[in-house]
């Protein structure tokens, strides 16, 4: 039987996502890929595999899944209630998904995007060098109930690890740098922008999220006739009525609405994961500060594997205690090191 994940039931927005398809901006295709790229890095660390492997992104709600053979899984991103044949599974952790068992993942308890990672990664077809669904571009589409996703071969066996995720599911302050059009906004508007508490609107998707505030809209001095210019993920676009949109992975590649600034890549997961109503604030940092932040974050992500700890199992959670291999289940906690090539 082909090594695959069967989707028995799924929310409306299950998509296969990897790091996206950089290199096609010139053809109008934004990079896309996982809305929360940090979650991909966390899943990769938990499974000890490259972060470029594709995972299942679950927007708002999970589904019910079954593996055609034993598989390793990891659960990251927005915490969702997960159960394996009725037994609760820890989030931000790696587990064994035995052949034939039912994995049920519910709605997000906090945040927006949860991720189901598979040992070996999802091996669905590529288009323009990526397996990611780019919904806005019409490249691939959501994964529907009844379908099977092929899964690549897995060379490792470690499961039962957890990590402490970077806090990003409850809003907070996000940092941004000035961009091309920041200077078009009067200083007072920039001050007010940083002093305003925004709430994420119910309108939001992989392209971007709309932000609401109690005060008046934000306005620049040039109006609606600016020449369309390059857009990058993280850009905060101010539409004609003064409402900010933070643009995410699947954003358009050019646009004419002025951008008040650009959210740092390191802070973009915090925006993507904000659920409707969540409070967000903005603060400008200099480009020099931003570069230092990005470098530190890249280093932190590269070291995620070092922060794993063994998952403590409660005896009552072990489904079949007699069948459970207590001896091999007790390790020196150095599986990761030993499995490094």
């Amino acid at each position, binding site marked *: 039987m082909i090594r695959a994940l069967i989707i028995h039931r799924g929310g409306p927005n299950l998509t296969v996502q990897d790091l996206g398809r950089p290199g096609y901006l*010139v053809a*109008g295709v934004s990079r896309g890929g996982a809305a929360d790229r940090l979650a991909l890095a966390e899943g990769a660390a938990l499974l000890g595999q490259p972060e470029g492997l594709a995972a299942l992104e679950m927007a708002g709600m999970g589904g019910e899944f079954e593996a055609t053979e034993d598989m390793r899984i990891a659960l990251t991103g927005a915490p969702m209630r997960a159960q394996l044949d009725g037994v609760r599974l820890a989030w931000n952790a790696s587990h064994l998904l035995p052949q034939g068992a039912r994995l049920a993942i519910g709605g997000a308890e906090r945040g927006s995007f949860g991720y189901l990672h598979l040992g070996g990664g999802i091996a669905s077809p590529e288009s323009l060098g990526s397996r990611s669904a780019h919904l*806005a571009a*019409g490249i691939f589409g959501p994964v529907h109930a009844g379908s099977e996703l092929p899964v690549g071969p897995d060379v490792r066996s470690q499961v039962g690890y957890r990590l402490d995720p970077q806090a990003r599911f409850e809003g907070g302050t996000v940092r941004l740098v000035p961009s091309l059009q920041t200077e078009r906004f009067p200083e007072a508007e920039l001050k007010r922008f940083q002093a305003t508490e925004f709430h994420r609107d119910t309108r939001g998707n992989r392209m971007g999220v709309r932000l609401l505030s109690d005060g008046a809209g934000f306005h620049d001095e040039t109006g609606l006739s600016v*020449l369309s210019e390059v857009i990058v993920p993280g850009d905060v676009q101010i539409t004609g009525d003064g409402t900010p949109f933070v643009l995410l992975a699947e954003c358009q*590649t050019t646009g004419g609405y002025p951008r008040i600034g650009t959210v740092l890549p390191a802070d973009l997961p915090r925006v993507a994961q904000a659920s409707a109503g969540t409070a967000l604030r903005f603060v400008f940092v200099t480009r020099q500060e931003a570069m230092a932040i990005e470098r530190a974050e890249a280093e932190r992500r590269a070291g995620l594997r070092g922060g794993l700890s063994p998952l403590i199992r409660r005896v009552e959670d072990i489904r079949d205690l007699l069948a459970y291999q207590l001896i091999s289940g007790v390790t020196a906690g150095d599986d990761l090191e030993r499995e490094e090539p």
Partner: protein
Amino acid sequence: MQDDTVSEAEPRFPRVRPVGVDGLLVSFGDRLSEPANRAALAFRDALDREGPPGIEETSTSLVSTYLRFDLLHGDSAVLQRGVEALLASDDWYARPLPHGRRLWRIPTVFGTALAPQLEEAAAAAGMTPEAAIRSVSETRVRVQTIGFAPGQPYLGELDEAWNIPRQTALTDKVPIGALTVAIRQLVLFSVSTPTGWRHIGQTAFRAFRPESDTPFVLRPGDEVLFDAVAPEVLEKVRAEGPDGGATAEALP
């Protein structure tokens, strides 16, 4: 090379500015002009061939060349100096248009329920709907850049009367093949998406064909005539395939 602090009223070009944390934009003007458009295309080509190390991706917008660099390796100041040196090495405004250009004729229904904002756009341009159709359909426009969505062309330049702003509110969705207008330009939508541009015509042309060997059909420098046809004609050519009745011939 260029002082970034010159007053907004008189910016000097070309101009190098940062985009986000890991990008640079080289702008050849602040309004659309053919020399600036040609310069942006030629400079991107030069960056791809002989740009400084560390560049990960390049693209063009209407009058600018964009590059994204590897933030984690190398010194961004060194990279910027390399870009500025290349910029100073030639007169990019004097460069020719790209090779292999084509003239496309794309059947288009103007107005009707298929393109409900023709009358509103015509009024904004100070024309009757009939005059607006003539003005747009008889202007040979050029693909100035591909952007916003996959394979999606920005075309220009229309008569000065069409220097109309975008809408303040977004239209919820225009269909694939929608022809829209603002600021003397046309955009032919390759995807169905919200937009601030006014929907004045409808074609059956698919500018992005993910299943094809040539997913991106139009190229910068190509020219297009949007021939006015009746709704029945559009339905017929729509059934014939993704070209929607469009024809292409090589330009000298």
